[in-house]
């Protein structure tokens, strides 16, 4: 397997990976409060929905770059 690592890709990998790690760290850090709050339902529905969008953006960006760096890219032929 050949690594496909350039400076912009590395920067993207580190940035998106760090933000993703912080999001997950925050979730576990405030686990009880978060569950208590979201379990009330109603307008607290915004929290899981917003979290899902945030994770899909940052973690989605990280995973996409991750496979790219590993040389696993779409077929261009």
């Amino acid at each position, binding site marked *: 397997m050949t690594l496909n690592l350039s400076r912009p890709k590395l920067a993207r990998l580190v940035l998106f990976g760090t933000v993703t790690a912080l999001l997950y760290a925050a979730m576990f850090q405030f686990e009880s409060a978060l569950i208590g709050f979201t379990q009330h339902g109603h307008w607290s*529905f915004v929290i899981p929905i917003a979290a*899902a969008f945030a994770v899909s953006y940052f*973690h989605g960006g990280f995973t996409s770059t*991750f496979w790219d760096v590993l040389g696993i890219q779409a*077929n261009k*032929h």
Partner: protein
Amino acid sequence: MDITAINFIDLNLTNIVFLLFVGFVGGLVSGFIGSGGAFVLTPAMMSMGVPGIVAVASNMCHKFPKALVGAIKRHKYGQVDVKLGLILGVSAEVGVLYGAHIMEDIKKTWGDAGSNLYVSAIFVVVLALVGGWVLLDAWKIHRSGGEENDEPTRLARWMQSLRIPGTMFYSDAAKAEISWLVTIPIGISTGLLAATIAVGGFIGVPAMMYVLGVPSLMASGTELVIAFVMGLGGSIKYAWGGFVDIRLAMIILAGSLFGIQLGAIGTTYVKPYLVKVVMGTIMIVVLFSRALVIPVYLSKLGWIAALSETTIAVLKDTSLVVMVLALLIGAGIILRAVYSGMRASRQPELTEADPV
């Protein structure tokens, strides 16, 4: 706060690793065939002690962002008809709400066993009919050399020939004008199935292929848009009721986003008919999984002789194992196809670089 007192389970490392793994495999399958990766998660979470409604809600809350990421990825490869996906998504949402209503009514009348029997029976009937059809079609294409004929079926040609003024739109995927009225039954059926067995794509993808004349790769890519619309609406509904366990949803999402990217990349290396092979295979194996537990629910309802606790446990465990097996078989076919496809596509580059 004591989490167990409010019916959300305490997570340990084994649970987290298990959810990450199932999320990854589920994402891989969803990225490839447009759906079908998440159905194993609800029973898997329930086997960990998560209450049924929390498992369904958390599963749905991980599905819509996963579908969004997959749809964006596959859109880059030209495999998504956003307009068709959004139009189908609206009627699918209606199907989801109506399907949830049916489920509630059945549960009120016959209890948990009746509701489980209904889900399993729908699984078996739909998977036998649609899975058998899809697999047969894939087999025919394989026998004819693996080249898929993208010509629409006779039914699709008839659908495309319908002209209903004021309702026509151009579908990039079908390369034809279609009336949004004919998409309504497909969308509603997709939503109904999603509300019942959590995988609407088992109807949505084949219906797009055989009824609307959408090529298989475009159909599986477009299904991700429908899954996003349905999942977002369903997640808001469940989160409004306070049923989403955000930790479960985000952990599964962490694994599934790795998988869905890989599954989407995989579609660019394979012959389109492989989507049908993977989908048909998973559907038929899952059919057996659900058929195994039907006697359990019939027995609980008193419609057949009572089964012993041991028999019930064996049937349920075997069913879950077969379901996981379905997912692993699908993932195995995808990974193998991607590996072979990547090797084959790099061969010319290697040959050019080294003419010897």
